[in-house]
């Protein structure tokens, strides 16, 4: 799989990571290299194989449907870069 610069930019946008022109160029080669290398998996026929979901068969755990946590707004906003009252502050989203 050859990844071109346009694809690198699209992926970086999806990942919300700003990249420079120089980085886009070098990532083109690096990502292509890694994706070419993983293509060896195509040698294996997996048509009748189920994807692995867990190591040991275990029923999904359920818990009682009741509130066990909360009233900790101070703790939740404690590490935020910008806070107003108990709100996270971000640049204006809606005009």
């Amino acid at each position: 799989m050859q990844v071109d610069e346009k694809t690198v930019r699209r992926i970086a946008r999806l990942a919300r990571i700003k990249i420079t022109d120089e980085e886009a160029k070098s990532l083109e080669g690096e990502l292509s290299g890694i994706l070419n290398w993983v293509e060896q998996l195509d040698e294996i026929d997996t048509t009748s194989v189920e994807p692995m979901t867990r190591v040991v068969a275990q029923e999904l755990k359920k818990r009682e449907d009741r509130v066990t946590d909360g009233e900790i707004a101070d703790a939740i906003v404690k590490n935020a870069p910008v806070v107003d009252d108990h709100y996270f502050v971000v640049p204006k989203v809606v005009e």
Partner: protein
Amino acid sequence: MSELTRLTLAEARDGLKAKTFSATELTKAHLETIEASNEALNAYVLVTPEHALAQAKEADARLAKGEARPLEGLPLGNKDLFCTDGIRTTACSKILDDFKPTYESTVGANLWSAGAVMLGKLNNDEFAMGSSNETSAFGPVVSPWRRNGKTDKLVPGGSSGGSSAAVAAGLCLAATATDTGGSIRQPAALTGTVGIKPTYGRCSRWGIVAFASSLDQAGPIAKTVRDAAIMLGAMAGHDPKDTTSVNAPVPDYEAALGKGIKGLRVGVPKEYRVEGMSKEIDDLWTKGIEWLKAAGATIHEISLPHTKYALPAYYIVAPAEASSNLARYDGVRYGLRVPGKDVIDTYENTRAAGFGKEVRRRILIGTYVLSAGYYDAYYLKAQKVRTLIKRDFDEAWSKVDVVLTPTTPSPAFAFGEKTGDPLAMYLEDIFTVTVNMAGLPGLSVPAGLSSEGTPLGLQLIGKPFDETTLFQTAQAIEDAAGRFTVGERWWAGDAKKAAAAPAKKKPGGK
């Protein structure tokens, strides 16, 4: 240099019980050693002396009253991937900045409630992504080991390089670590320490900074097999807060150590004899086989035909899960924020500035393989390959009880030797990554020295939840091979000369 820092965890525990020294003395000895050594080794990214001495004081009170808990007064290091209540936790990334969790990881809480003392937070590759500790925002860790007659700085392995270096250098009695593709076993092998990645689900992942959730497991790095057994016993256990944590009793691993391995069936997989494997690794493997035979085990050649596909499948699964897990670092709720012209620009600036190069590379790979139209071809395919890898082992377990392989394809390397080519670095995990893909327990035990005088390890792979057999088998290897400790503490008390070593107080740019 205090002799107390040369003790094993078990010896220190016995010394405390016998009142040969106090928990405060033991803790102070370690803090002094850290003070004298850390500038050169950079194993700790944060030392917490007040916190440690307060815990030691409580331990001394309990010891005096005869109310000692299993790890009472024993000073440990804690990998900076484990959240610590009120104490900075960064995953060694700039993006977490000065993050101070308001909660403690379950594994950490288990250790402290067993009486252990936390000396500080240990360096690691950023978000545990790396095999040399060179991707840490705090700069690399220097291995206490050197090649014969040389002074080149060697890597302590990664991602738990702070843990392995600190244990090998006597900067803690034992340490927490995590392993997603080999991050406990490879650093243990490169530093002459013992490391175990337990079965997926054995330790709670709650409160550990997530990398790849279907692969991540916590485990210890320790000086001896016995110490690793003591540590895992305290760390493991069911946790309702982690839905993948398994509700199964934790055996007394230490008590099982003396049982021996007579009649044990040991598998040797032919697929691990990879092209380009160094002769000394091959010889070490043969020696391991001989030791286990001499201890009463029988050796059987087995086949794990999908071994070669584990690493490429891992480099789909791990980046995919990482790209999803690391989406949370957006500069809004915690950590670094780099303002932009609007909210998306803020996200993009923050993540460009906050993540290091390897982390960005893996997020992009992960985003690509999960992007529209590619999910089946990559992630789903890789998860199917995992089933085949696991099936190989399931078949092997009908013939053998444990599998013996080398831990790494080569001995410790020097700084910068493998950073140029991501694929060369990824190959460090070639023998360890299958274990994560299949969710099995794996242990690395020191088994010899390379021709350069640096440590080499052997890996034992076990059946799900059969860590006990791994400890028993590793004990037989340790009994035969002996322990490997760094002779001269060249780094200690020589901190000024070592000022060239990168030791930063805060995550800074290069």
